[in-house]
């Protein structure tokens, strides 16, 4: 089942002139929030939620360690809501032409036919398309956007909404709480194992725009699902903002795999809060690949709430010239017999900056918990930057935490070995770098793996244009 998956930023670098039926105007204020809430016909409780979030956003600031200042966001120039005003279609033929041609060009409808159990395609602020295999719908699986989830499946989603990531958690969760739109609300009933992945594709088309999707996934007892998220945007000269919130609740015995391939163009500020709560014996896996964006701040977290729960974060990060990937993971062990694993690998090219921030926390009353984390970084060029801030906090004597990290350039012995086999330097570098990421790339579905390798090679080739190839004194 060969599927042609293309996440390269050049293939996503196009946009179509679109007329938006609904536009909240530039900037963010109470009237923006009311506009959005009224348009979506939201109940009073949801409007109040948004207004509270707005107040928190206005009051809050970023933490000192953040690689960004609140003022840089310049929300006053951004459109916080743009849409066609249509409900999502379930047939590609019904999707408005300008939107459809975008997704056709990205190959989404074709992929859906061949590969996915369900697809949602978001265009700027709203879902243009959403479809779920009939068999899954019949089993009670819900896969809708946030508005539909909160309005038509309130009993299902409202009890969990905002509980994993409260509004005041950080500046971006407050921002998102005020103006969120789109995103996936998913419920998988008890015992249902969804075999093929559910896919969401986020597309930014407009300039000077903020996309604030909100995702809430609830996997009931012993259910299983994989969710794949891809995002692209055209390369505009102005900045674009993507501040998303992803909340996941894995009930006892549930298994969840959340895979992201992020290749936003390098004018996008990508600020995402992702957190899962794992109950007894649940398994939560975040599989994250960050290649694009101007700045990404994303630290997937798992709260290990129930005994026997396990969480893992596998992260690939590539930072090229002018890019900053500030990513990491947080594992909070609140119950006994829980396990966590973090493997983060990064590549910095040119003056690209890759930073890892991690937290492992073992509470006072837990026992027999284990955590293993490893961060490896390759710095291609002499201006490349790598930073690692792993924080371990252990408050009992019955747990084991292990952490290791290493930073280096490409090994000259490895390079020489391949060159002695007749392989040119840039091919040799590709082999070594793909080898470096290999154990993580294997975690992605195969078609994505192939595409990821290609993307990484493209980033290296682009970086190589600036690289000075000369004899270096090796010691």
């Amino acid at each position, binding site marked *: 089942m060969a599927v042609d998956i293309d996440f390269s930023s050049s293939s996503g670098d196009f946009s179509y002139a679109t007329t938006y039926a609904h536009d909240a105007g530039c900037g963010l204020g109470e009237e923006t929030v009311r506009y959005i809430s009224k348009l979506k016909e939201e109940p009073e409780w949801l409007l109040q939620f948004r207004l509270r979030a707005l107040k928190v956003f206005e009051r809050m600031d970023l933490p000192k360690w953040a690689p960004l200042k609140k003022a840089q966001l310049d929300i006053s120039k951004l459109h916080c809501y743009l849409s066609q005003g249509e409900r999502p279609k379930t047939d590609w033929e019904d999707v408005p032409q300008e939107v459809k041609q975008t997704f056709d060009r990205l190959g989404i409808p074709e992929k859906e036919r061949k590969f996915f159990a369900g697809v949602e395609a978001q265009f700027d602020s709203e879902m243009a398309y959403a479809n779920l295999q009939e068999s899954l719908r019949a089993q009670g699986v819900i896969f809708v956007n946030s508005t539909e989830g909160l309005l038509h499946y309130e009993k299902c989603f409202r009890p969990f909404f905002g509980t994993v990531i409260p509004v005041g958690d950080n500046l971006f969760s407050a921002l998102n709480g005020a103006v969120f739109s789109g995103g996936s609300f998913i419920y998988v009933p008890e015992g249902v194992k969804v075999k093929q992945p559910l896919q969401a594709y986020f597309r930014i088309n407009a300039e000077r725009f903020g996309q604030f999707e909100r995702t809430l996934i609830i996997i009931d007892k012993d259910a299983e699902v994989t969710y794949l998220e891809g995002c692209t945007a055209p390369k505009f000269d102005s900045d674009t903002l993507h501040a998303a919130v992803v909340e996941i609740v894995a009930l006892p015995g549930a298994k969840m795999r959340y895979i992201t391939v992020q290749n936003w163009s390098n004018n996008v500020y990508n600020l995402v809060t992702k957190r899962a709560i794992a109950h007894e014996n649940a398994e939560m896996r975040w599989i994250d690949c960050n290649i694009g964006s101007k700045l990404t701040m994303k630290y997937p977290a798992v709260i290990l709430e129930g005994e026997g729960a396990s969480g893992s974060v596998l992260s690939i990060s590539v930072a090229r010239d002018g890019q900053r990937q500030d990513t990491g993971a947080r594992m909070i062990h609140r119950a006994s017999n829980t396990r966590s694993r973090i493997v983060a690998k990064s590549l910095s090219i040119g003056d690209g900056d890759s930073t890892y921030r991690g937290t492992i926390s073992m509470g006072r009353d837990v026992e027999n918990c284990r955590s293993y984390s490893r961060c490896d970084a390759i710095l291609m060029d002499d201006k490349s930057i790598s930073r690692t801030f792993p924080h371990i906090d252990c408050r009992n004597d019955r747990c084991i935490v292990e952490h290791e990290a290493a930073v280096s350039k490409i090994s*000259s012995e490895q390079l020489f*070995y391949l060159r002695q*086999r007749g392989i040119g330097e840039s091919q040799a570098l590709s082999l070594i770098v793909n*080898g470096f990421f290999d154990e993580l790339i294997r975690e992605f579905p195969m078609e994505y793996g192939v595409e990821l390798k290609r993307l990484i090679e493209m980033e290296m080739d682009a970086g190589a244009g600036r690289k000075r190839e000369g004899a270096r004194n090796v010691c």
Partner: protein
Amino acid sequence: MFHGLLLQDISVGSGEKFFVRGVSLVVPAGELHILVGPNGAGKSSLLKALAGHPDYAVSAGEFFLDGENLLEMTPEERSRCGLFLAFQSPVPLPGVALGRMLQVARQERQPKGAPIDVRAFYGELCNAMESLGMERSWATRFVNDGISGGESKRCELLQILLLHPKYLLLDELDSGLDMDAVNLVAETLEKLRRAGTGILCVTHRQSLLQTLNPDRIHILREGRLLCSGGMELAEELHVRGFQGF
């Protein structure tokens, strides 16, 4: 044109650290020569310098392969001219599969990037693995990663069989090998020699001289070539040891 490796007055190193000084020797195509000397004599350094290792620069002298001046070439260009260096302790390449690396190496030898016949290549790979007693799973194992000395030598031999070099530089090929493995290596080298490959083997163990039956022996000590001769040198070496030269 002379078919062979020609080293003329090769010096490796500079300033305070000279690895090798003024070494001249010739390895004609189809002959097996052994360069023998005690540990630290400079044998490995010489081979690495000939292959273009960035840490071992040739500071003086000439090096020709079938009349081509290799010193002006990058390591990969030297390889494509037909030079193969089998390392003593090959570096691991985690995540890089052996089959893939060889496929890329073959592809890079194609004129003007013409694609190779991948099916034919893998067929050839399987045959070569079989002839060396290697299981097919080796094609997907990571190069030199988590394998024993004997296994890594077999991988080097596999690469030789697939890249068809004209000349081999072998660095301590018997280190870490048991007798069976040494014999397998010796058999393979003999086949290659008869097919016209020129071979320069480097070792500090005199026992290898008997096993390989070289056409010529060269003795290296403290970076200098002391003398060259036929198998009669092997006898003398056995009697006098390296210090006797």
